């Protein structure tokens, strides 16, 4: 008996995951830019920048993927 293959993430969840990931990603992006602009360039901590940038890029990347999938562009 052959097993049907389906997506690793349930397809009904695609729109919800899109909104979730993109929201979190944008909030982290905002936090990144606020940090960059308000602190003076002498006292910025590099690890904090990289961390915020990394986390926001992960969420934005996943959000963009689910955005593409939920709009019908099955990549």
């Amino acid at each position, binding site marked *: 008996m052959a097993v049907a293959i389906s997506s690793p993430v349930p397809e009904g969840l695609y729109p919800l995951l899109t909104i979730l990931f993109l929201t979190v990603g944008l909030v982290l992006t905002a936090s990144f830019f606020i940090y960059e602009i308000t602190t003076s360039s002498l006292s910025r901590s590099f690890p904090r920048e990289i961390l915020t*940038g990394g986390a926001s890029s*992960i969420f934005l*990347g996943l959000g963009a993927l689910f955005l593409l999938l939920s709009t019908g562009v099955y990549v």
Partner: protein
Amino acid sequence: MAASSLCLIGCLALWILTGAALAEDLVVAKLDRRVDLTSQVARTLVSFKIENSGSDPATKFLFALSKDQFDHLAYISAASVSVKGKSRTQSAPLTVKEVEKKEDPSSDAVYFEISLEKSLEQGQAATIDVQYALTHTLTPFPREIRQSETQLVLYHDSAYVLSPYLVKFQTTFFKLPGSRVESYTKVEPTKLGDKEIKYGPYENVSPLSQAPVTLQFENNRPFAVVETLEQEIEISHWGNVYATENYHLKHTGARLKGGFSRLDYQAKGNGVSAFRYLAAILPPRAHSIYYRDEIGNISTSHVRNEPKRTIVEFEPRYPLFGGWQVKFTLGYSVPLQDFVFLAPDGSRYLNFTFGSPLVDVVVEKITTKVVLPEGSRDPSVEAPLALDEQHQEVKHSYLDTVGRKVVVLTKKNVVAEHNVPFQVKYKFNPLAMLAEPLMLIFGFFCFFLACMAYLHFDFPISKSSAAYQARLQQEEVLDLLQRFQKLMKRRLFEAEKLEAALRDLARTGDVAPCKASKKLVDATLSKEVKAIHEALQATSRSSSVNSKVEALITKEKEKHERLLQKLNLTVDLYERKMSSKEIDSRLAPHEQKYTHLKSEVAELMDSLDD
């Protein structure tokens, strides 16, 4: 003399041998042939009842077609039939193999070897059904017609079925789409029925004998031929299989001459051989169906969803008359779980129907491309039909780095009997699906790195201009102010901790934590404050800021002194274990001053922010 006689003997032997090889001691006792000429494809069903009149058991049966028919052959299959009285049931299909026979080249027969289900013993009989379909055998005659005329087609065949065996009894029926028959060759006995012509019965026809007949009759069924069909099936493991089909459809019936009159077509219904309505049967749960051509979307289409299939009825932009052609694209998506499965050995395979989903068309050349997801390895095809060509390509699609493997299958002369499922197997590691989100994440991360780089690096035009220096100074001041603010906040925090300890004291009467927190606060915070203050004075020349900072520092110091006083007092009072009313009264003035100072400090901190 000797040489010629030897030659003769040799020829005789050869003749006997080939004759024996051909005859194989089988005899066709009864033959029934039905030819269906109602559509553009001539479908024939021949039913043989064979007997083994020789001594050796027979395992193979030879079926013959004339060379002309073989050139137009699209499909052939055979099945053994079990006959019980009046009922016939078709049992297992038999393998049909095209074979080369080295007989005299004057006979234009092409042979197919059918392997019998079980070997036929001497005197035994068996029934075999052979079905075959021929395309482009119904030729329009006259080749050009006016819009008001009907279409007449010619069909050439033989009244005797071409067979290498002796046929004892045979009958042929030709089924026609209409009752109008223009002409037909008479090979007695021939009988013309309502929509049928019966040739036969003929008895004891010798092997490989033919009696050519030509029928000319009316056939207004759509002669829709797809010249080229490019079908692309793209698999995405995120849940979808896309199918895109590019058609080049042509009407191969009698060509239209004398112009097309729209009025006649619509008002009088002229143009009976033209067709307009096309239908495609798609798999169930097909969605996102589109029908367009180079100009754009074509809206004359309807979709009906049924439990086992989806029916799309569509019309081209204009009706198709003889010789007219049209190009369009039909596309749809189906869910992944209906078509891609996991094989027991861990590889995946796509199970899709071959051929065109269009109803009643002949495809002259079909190119099916199966696009496998990125990261697929070792593709292989299993198809129960003979494919003309098979090769691999690479296609670059969404979010691709190296490209996707494409398996390309080509076949010529495809009819509806070829719509059978075929499988494309491939190996896929599920982790390869991560490549797509990782690429997106990497892209966004590069954007953030670029922002960081831009904000960090300093590329002024001149390093000694006044504006640049002023900006540098401003940054330093800002920096120091921020550090100072941080420090103040910490001191405030410590003060609040002390207050909390005092409150605890009021409730519980426990002195020890009070003393501990006092010790913490007396630590080196004051040293840091001093350092910042000095740095600020050294670098800044803006007096307003400086004065504010100084004011803040002094106030804060006052507040701190007050707090410490209050603390010491409270502790003493509690150690002396006085009553709470007295404690409160003694603390009251200190409290007031303390809160006043606290508010002043807060105000100054706020003013520092601008």
